[in-house]
């Protein structure tokens, strides 16, 4: 799975460089997020701008990240959701749970974060 992790504006940005986030690769994303938290990362941004398709396991991996970041008093935000990906968050009402920014730039300059 293509995942890019980098520091930017004192956040750890994990950019998912895959068109699909599904049961084939979502576990790898979940592990990467966990490892980032274990290594001390506290302000996480997951950039989904390349993702055209997400399934229930992809949503699950993001929820896992969200919960684990909260447990550690970290922040966990999402950016760059394409419209159809966003509609899956809406169908499951997860758009009310996650802090979601249109693009990475907004996410990095976001107020009230972490």
């Amino acid at each position, binding site marked *: 799975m293509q995942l890019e992790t980098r520091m930017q504006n004192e956040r750890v940005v994990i950019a998912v460089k895959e068109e*699909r986030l*599904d*049961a*084939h690769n979502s576990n790898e994303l979940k592990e990467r997020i966990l490892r980032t938290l274990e290594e001390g990362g506290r302000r996480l941004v997951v950039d989904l701008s390349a993702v055209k*398709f997400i*399934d*229930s*396991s992809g*949503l*699950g*991996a993001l*929820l*896992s990240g*969200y*919960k684990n970041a909260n447990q550690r008093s970290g922040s966990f935000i999402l950016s760059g959701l394409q419209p*159809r990906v966003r509609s*899956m968050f809406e*169908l*499951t*009402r997860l758009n009310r*749970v996650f802090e979601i920014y249109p693009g990475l730039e907004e996410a990095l300059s976001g107020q009230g974060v972490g």
Partner: protein
Amino acid sequence: MSVDIVVPNQTRYLRLIGNIAEQIAKELETSCYDQDTLAYHLNLVLTEAVANAIEYGDAKSPNHNVKVCLSIHDKDLRISVYDHGQGFDITSVPAPDLDKLEERGRGIFFIRNLMDTVAYHRSEGGNVLEMHKSLG
């Protein structure tokens, strides 16, 4: 029109099955549906159903196959996904509590939401998830 697909029970084939579903959606004449939305929905329904068939269907035999049948006749879309596992009672799977932040349990929810009818029963020495949607 019909398309039958048999793949090894490995998640790497989810993409192929989902993409084929999108190609089929592109050819469908629908009045009440945006074509790209329908493509996403069929992709999702198949991805969820096949992921379950892989996860719950006979993990002991890693060389088992998963079979998917798609057919469209007179604006009636039918999808069947076969597995060789223990089976389950789909009517007893509750709708997920969307306010609880469970990591799992949204697959059947998506399928029920996006298809008109969903049933699961024994078939061909295994089980089949049968789904139907009218594109009318």
